[in-house]
């Protein structure tokens, strides 16, 4: 067995194609800029001389250069695609690293194809999500986000090695290195190389996606629940309540985040039980939010109100006891809890929610102050709606545009925040493959062996980029009818 090259057997043909196309592209772009400048200069000169002169501009050359640049970009993309697809076709020995990686991700590709086919097929019936299929930016963003979501889901089928396993002789090896003394039937290479403890970087990155996507979206949802539940009354009622809540939010925002994390996650602090009290307060908000939501909406129909609020309280408080106090009552019946959270994870979760909610609070408060001056809010008031109905059903839905965008962005920040936490080794076990810890571990040998740090960094960046693009697409489409 030999070490893999990046491109495998296709390399000798396609790499020169990419190189030549890139050179052509650079020349064409530079030429195009010059042509436009020339056209602009002559165009203005002609204008001042004798009115609008349109035909004198050297349009022909500019268009040719545009075409050349487009063809070059197309060629580069085609070559990369071929290299990737070659992973599916070529025999084991001739696949490159890119080909292998593409092949290993096959469940993700399949899931993406199914999702997008169905979404585009039924986009008219899918509301805002369906409209996203009309926005190229949104589709790219969604594609990247879904890529990582599916990677997290199918992680165990994608990984090539045990993410925690250390194989001898694989310390800091370069990407594509062949495993020394492989066990029978195991994957024979470290696709993206090995880290300083001789673990497979590729597999750790894949498992890292799972870690990150378990915490970030859920923590963001909780932060939104807290921020919305407090921001609505602060913006709507104003006055002393607003002053108090805004002051508290500013206090949290003004406190150095990293220091706060250190405080919340250090074992001494954990022993005092403070994170659990935080959890007890913060986890209550979603229950309050949904109970008030249904209560205000169905107040006129008591049987239905009782049903919805009852179910909310039952499920909510059940999950609440399980998650916040690790005291799921089911445990006493069937021996194991349905809702529970690892104490380490709880700490991280609580800190992330605590740090994020003031930001959400401020956004919601500002939006409410803007929207509450509208006539439909006055119409609600004049027919005697309760303040909470107006806040939750008249104002909140109309603030959704900025909130959805902020939600997507905030998942990205949370991901980065988790990375920061991991980077400082807070709240996660040292073995954990999450991206932050991995980057920190790779940092020490960055100048000599960049790959252990670069791979999770690129993963982190692409996920956050995907979320931002998705946010853009959603914002654009939610404004259209």
């Amino acid at each position, binding site marked *: 067995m030999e070490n893999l090259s990046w491109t495998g057997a296709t390399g000798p043909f396609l790499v020169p194609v990419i190189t030549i196309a890139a050179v052509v592209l650079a020349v064409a772009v530079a030429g195009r800029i010059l042509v436009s400048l020339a056209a602009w200069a002559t165009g203005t000169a002609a204008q001042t001389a004798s009115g*609008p002169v*349109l035909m004198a501009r050297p349009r022909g050359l500019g268009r040719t250069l545009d075409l050349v640049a487009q063809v070059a970009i197309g060629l580069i993309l085609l070559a990369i695609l071929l290299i990737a697809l070659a992973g599916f076709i070529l025999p084991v020995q001739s696949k490159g690293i890119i080909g292998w990686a593409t092949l290993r991700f096959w469940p993700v590709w399949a899931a993406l194809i199914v999702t997008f086919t169905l979404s585009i097929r039924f986009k008219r019936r899918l509301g805002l999500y369906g409209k996203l299929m009309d926005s190229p930016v949104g589709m790219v963003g969604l594609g990247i986000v879904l890529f990582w979501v599916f990677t997290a889901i199918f992680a165990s089928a994608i990984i090539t090695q045990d993410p925690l396993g250390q194989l001898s002789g694989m310390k800091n090896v370069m990407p594509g290195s062949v495993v020394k003394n492989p066990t029978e039937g195991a994957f024979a290479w470290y696709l993206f190389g090995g880290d300083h403890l001789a673990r497979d970087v590729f597999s750790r990155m894949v498992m890292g996606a799972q870690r990150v996507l378990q915490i970030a979206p859920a923590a963001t949802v909780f932060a939104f629940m807290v921020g919305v539940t407090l921001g609505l009354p602060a913006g709507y009622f104003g006055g002393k309540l607003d002053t108090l809540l805004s002051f508290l939010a500013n206090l949290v925002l003004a406190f150095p985040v990293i220091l706060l994390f250190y405080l919340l996650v250090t074992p001494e602090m954990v022993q005092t039980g403070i994170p659990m009290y935080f959890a007890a307060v913060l986890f209550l908000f979603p229950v309050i939010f949904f109970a008030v939501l249904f209560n205000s909406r169905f107040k006129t129909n008591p049987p239905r109100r009782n049903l919805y609020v009852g179910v909310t309280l039952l499920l909510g408080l059940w999950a609440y006891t399980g998650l916040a106090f690790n005291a799921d009552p089911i445990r006493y019946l069937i021996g194991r809890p349905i809702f529970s959270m690892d104490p380490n994870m709880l700490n991280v979760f609580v800190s992330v929610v605590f740090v994020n909610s003031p930001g959400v609070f401020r956004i919601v408060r500002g939006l409410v102050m803007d929207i509450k001056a509208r*006539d*439909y809010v006055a119409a609600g008031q*004049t*027919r*005697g709606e309760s303040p909470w109905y107006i806040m939750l059903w008249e104002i909140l839905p109309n603030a959704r545009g900025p909130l959805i965008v902020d939600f997507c962005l905030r998942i990205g920040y949370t991901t980065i925040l988790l990375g920061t936490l991991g980077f400082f080794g807070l709240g996660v076990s040292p073995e954990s493959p999450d991206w932050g810890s991995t980057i920190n571990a790779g940092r020490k040998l960055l100048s000599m062996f960049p790959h252990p740090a670069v791979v999770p960094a690129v993963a982190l960046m692409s996920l956050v980029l995907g979320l931002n693009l998705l946010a853009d697409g959603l914002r654009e489409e939610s404004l259209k009818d």
Partner: protein
Amino acid sequence: MPASASDTPWEPSQPILEIEHLSISFFTRLREIPAVMDFSCTVMAGEAMGLVGESGCGKSTVALAVMRELGKTGRIVAGSMKFKGRDLARMSDEELRHIRGSEIAMIYQEPMASLNPAMKVGAQLAEVPMLHSGMSKADAWALARQIVADVRLPDPDRIINSYPHQLSGGQQQRIVIAMALMAKPALLILDEPTTALDVTVEAGIVDLVKDLGEKYGTSMLFISHNLGLVMDVCDRICVMYSGEAVETGNVEQVFDEMRHPYTQALFRSIPLPGADKNARPLISIPGNFPLPHERPPGCNFGPRCDYFQQGRCDAAEVPMFPVPDSDRHETRCFRWNEIDWTAPPAAREVKEKAQVGRVVLKMEDLRKYYSVSGGTFGGGTKKVVKANETLSFEAREGETLAIVGESGCGKSTFAKVLMGLETATSGSIMLFDENVQSTPIQKRNTDTVSQVQMVFQNPFDTLNPSMTVGRQIIRALEIFNFGTSDAERHQRMLELLDLVKLPRAFADRMPRQLSGGQKQRVGIARAFAGGAKVVVADEPVSALDVSVQAAVTDLLMDIQRENKTTLLFISHDLSIVRYLSDRVMVMYLGHVVEMGTTDQVFAPPYHPYTEALLSAVPIADTRVERKRIVLEGDIPSAMNPPPGCPFQTRCRWKSQVPGNLCEVEVPPVQMLEGGHQIKCHLSSEVLATMEPVIKIAAE
């Protein structure tokens, strides 16, 4: 700008703008929506062409097409638009950039949205000639100053050095007009230029536009839904319906000898002097405006037309027929020469006058002051805004009390106090013998709340944009405890939609898919959902189309008769007030300046403000002679009202009062015969000399 060699030379005797068989479609994700079909019109040099029609008829689309501003989805599918002999539809962006702003200028409805808030007015104005004709900065500023003076703005030196937010709405619109005139365009497109303004301000702008048109010889394309305004401004008119021009001709001919059933129906649906809600009610046009992709075959107006003939009107597309012996008068009707156009309308439904019952609402000496702090940190001197001053009146069951006044007169504050959204500073409000003056809405019980409801002014704000129309009406039914089941409420919601003449399919629509008028009707349906006894209608029809106005006022009247609703109708449109109200209360800067029955208020003696207001309202009737009284200046700010009589700064009768009484003392309320109240210093002798503002010429 010199014409390039490829263009046909243009002579002033030829039309400035010649639109031929223009068709425009918007392409949405689902389908092609034809917005304008086979539209032709010709504007000669110096001519003012009025484009009239209901919202959604395509009049603004035509204007935007002339500017070639149809957006990404709009496309010209057929026809040509020749501007000075050159086809606008085939021009490149470069050529268009030269024409826009310099040869064709456009004035939009919302003045603040047309001005850059970060630039001084003078700089914005000077930009136009600097850009289009390379004028030097100093010359451009000098020209700007001159044009500002031309649009009759006081103190042009101060104005050109101020920012848009420092000017009032009327002044801003004058600046927009000035900007349009900076390049001395050959064609001026005005898209509802006065809709956002108060009537007295509108009258000034209309006068200005007319004079400027004469002074500069500018051709105009004047888009409006207001027939009276079009009569005031335009020489020719083109009536549009559902994407087609249905009748075109000069204003007198179209107004007096209309040859299209839609034009006729339109005139029968507007409240002209002489209309009466009981004896001669308006005739609203039956049916609904067809959706653009659901237009009927043949004549678009067919399904709503009294003269419809099956097999003929719905057989083929109707071409334009020229009316002989006329000034380019054309109509799009197969039967135009068969119909007896002078016949009176078939059996008007004469309605019984509603019985006016007991007093349901009584206000006494109501005052509402707001205190505004001067300094940034709450320090400084506190200013008091007197939004309402000594408001006293009674409203009876089944009565329509109109509250007339322009923006800033305190009518909205009054509505808020009545609704319980604010509490009064002093005075009392008795509602069904219950003092609600200091009861905020949260403390009122459901019955009281559902009995006092409000119809809001701004149709674009009145509905929650993220809830379906049906859901919003159902919510009102729910909160007022109507019905026992969802099915029952759903049924009632559909009936309410029928009541306000909206298709039932609208129940599942989102508000953004509705036009302004349709939204307003949903707002009315929602207000009446709880069987309201007192309805405050805050300019409910001011944003609606004329035929819709008739239908909506009819609807309001019908519901009023049925439920004995007391209607507090806040409006500045005196035509509609005269038509539907029993009593009128005129407000100015928080004061009630005149109050009496409709006849008393609309006949002399007037309060000077009422007189000006009456003369400012355009009336679409060629027989009516109107005295033009254009008020100088703007309404003073309520923060800083003038001393003495609030109206003294704009009053033309001030010289008739001895001494400077008007500037010193708030006038007392004079009680004239029949309970007619006027708050003015003018002696009864002077008041008696006043002449009626509106005279109907003998036929």
